[in-house]
């Protein structure tokens, strides 16, 4: 029951929204918790109780940690225990099979255990759940003992159904400071939330899914047969697909959050207009980038800088060494977070390396260069990264680079380029490319400033037109959902 499934769109959401509108505010937190548990249990009935146990245990860890008679030594033990306890399900379900399978080459006896772990399914949204709960623990361990902690609020924070499957990764304080929910503006919130949800649904269904089917076909072609044009078309189409898939999901989650009165923050800010890799990571999956910055990058940088006793090493400032190390560690872990596969680790390694090269000399070299040139260069590097991310294994990933850089000519007769696009694909590709740039926002800004649109009459007349546009978008998305079985959510796997 993901957000774009018919059951969610036509049964669950209307029921929950009606409930929201008619019920009182008094027990609304409890009601939202029950609905969120129901949503999760519908998808993952087996994992509901482990998740609830983790939440209750975290509440207990914090309570014991802040008790007056807890010694500093005990606090350290509690802290380590809590982090390990939260990481354990993620490590077993997501990485256990991968680690043991990789080690089985050295110790063949591990192969049996790896096969056993492979049978354990990965619970929906386990990476997001784990990261949100670790941030909750770390923030609360360092907070004042008197800080507000309430089991109901912790449960809602951890289980709130709009964000449980794939974020955005919100911090506990950011989420709970919005409680109690305001009584006013319910209709404004619902109106904004529905529009935002439809925008996300359209991004996902009308762009990401349409391109996804073609991307799958192109990435299934033996790499030796791929032509230069087809390889680039496949790689760029995948870049558009993954952006619209996840930005679409995030819009839906943010819209749903708003319908129930919560601001979940933004997750994307036009990543494909980034002028550097550093800029790309400020615009792509912002909530995850912030998490890694707070809990991995900055602590690694602080700790490593303290170890450097001299100002420079090999003619490079200590600060820069510290940045190199922190960037590298952060990006490799970020790659690993995306999945238990060497392709994700190498993708993270690749981005870490790019951040280091950028800081060492590329940023200085490009400083005075044209903005468009910087965008194009950055996006070429990003697209190369996406081919690693998309490929089933490292060999295929590096083989895919060959046609991209013209080292393999492929078979233009067998894979005649127009075989892979019809008018629908071509229009979607161009639309996706255009909407990756802030064209609509710029246009909206200009129209808002135009004098004629400030007129009350024009404002009133434009409302039904805007409503009709959203209605059409929703109908088109619903028709596409009804007519196609292809509806994968890329980030749900993470």
């Amino acid at each position, binding site marked *: 029951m993901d957000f774009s499934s018919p059951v969610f769109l036509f049964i669950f959401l209307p029921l929950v929204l009606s409930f929201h509108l008619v019920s009182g505010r008094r027990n609304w937190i409890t009601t939202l918790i029950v609905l969120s548990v129901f949503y999760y249990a519908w998808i993952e009935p087996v994992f509901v109780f482990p998740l609830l146990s983790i939440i209750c245990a975290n509440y207990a860890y914090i309570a014991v940690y802040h008790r007056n008679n807890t010694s500093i030594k005990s606090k350290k033990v509690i802290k380590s225990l809590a982090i390990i306890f939260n990481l354990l399900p993620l490590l077993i379900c997501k990485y256990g099979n991968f680690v043991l399978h990789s080690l089985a080459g050295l110790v063949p006896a591990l192969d049996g255990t790896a096969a056993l772990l492979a049978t354990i399914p990965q619970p929906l949204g386990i990476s997001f759940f784990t990261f949100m709960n670790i941030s909750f623990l770390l923030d609360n361990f360092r907070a004042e003992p008197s800080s507000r902690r309430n089991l109901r609020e912790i449960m809602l924070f951890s289980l709130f159904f709009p964000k449980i499957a794939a974020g955005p990764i919100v911090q506990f304080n950011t989420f709970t400071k919005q409680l109690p929910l305001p009584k006013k503006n319910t209709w404004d919130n619902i109106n904004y939330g529905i529009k935002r949800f439809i925008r996300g649904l359209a991004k996902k269904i009308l762009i990401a899914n349409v391109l996804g089917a073609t991307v799958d076909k192109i990435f299934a072609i033996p790499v030796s047969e791929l032509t230069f044009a087809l390889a680039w078309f496949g790689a760029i189409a995948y870049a558009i697909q993954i952006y619209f898939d996840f930005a679409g999901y995030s819009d839906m989650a943010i819209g749903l959050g708003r319908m129930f009165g919560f601001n979940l923050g933004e997750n994307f800010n036009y990543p494909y207009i980034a002028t550097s890799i550093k800029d790309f990571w400020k615009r792509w999956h912002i909530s995850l980038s912030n998490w890694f910055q*707070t809990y991995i990058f*900055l*602590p690694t*940088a*602080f*700790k490593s800088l303290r170890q450097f006793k001299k100002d420079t090493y090999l003619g490079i400032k200590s*600060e820069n060494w510290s940045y190199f190390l922190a960037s590298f560690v952060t990006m490799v872990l970020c790659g690993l977070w995306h999945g238990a596969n060497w392709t994700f680790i190498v993708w993270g390694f690749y981005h870490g390396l790019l951040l280091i090269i950028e800081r060492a000399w590329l940023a200085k070299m490009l400083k005075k260069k044209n903005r468009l040139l910087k965008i194009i260069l950055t996006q070429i590097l990003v697209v190369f990264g996406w081919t690693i991310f998309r490929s089933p294994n490292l060999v295929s990933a590096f083989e895919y680079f060959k046609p991209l850089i013209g080292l393999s000519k492929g078979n233009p007769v067998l894979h005649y380029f127009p075989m892979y696009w019809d008018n629908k694909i071509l229009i979607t590709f161009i639309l996706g490319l255009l909407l990756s740039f802030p064209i609509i926002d710029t246009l909206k800004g200009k129209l808002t400033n135009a004098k004629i649109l400030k007129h009350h009459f024009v404002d009133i007349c434009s409302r039904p037109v805007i409503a009709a546009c959203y209605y059409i978008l929703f109908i088109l998305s619903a028709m596409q959902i009804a007519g196609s079985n292809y509806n994968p959510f890329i980030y749900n796997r993470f």
Partner: protein
Amino acid sequence: MQDHEIKQTILEYIKQEYIDDDSYELSSSSLLISSGLVDSFSMVSLKRFLEIKYKVSIPDEKATPEAFDSVDSIVELIKQYL
């Protein structure tokens, strides 16, 4: 040590190390990280500078992007450890 002396030292350090535009008017309330004026990594080197300059030790967990978001908030942080 007076607040304004610390403030002045930090303002000069930020202008010299992180801001290319000499004509940029930086005030003690200007937002540094959240506005994108300086990147979050700058706080790592700024923290080290402050610790050496004022012979203090700022715990890592207190050195958050929020605490380093303006010269005023940095001064408040430093004062806790002077």
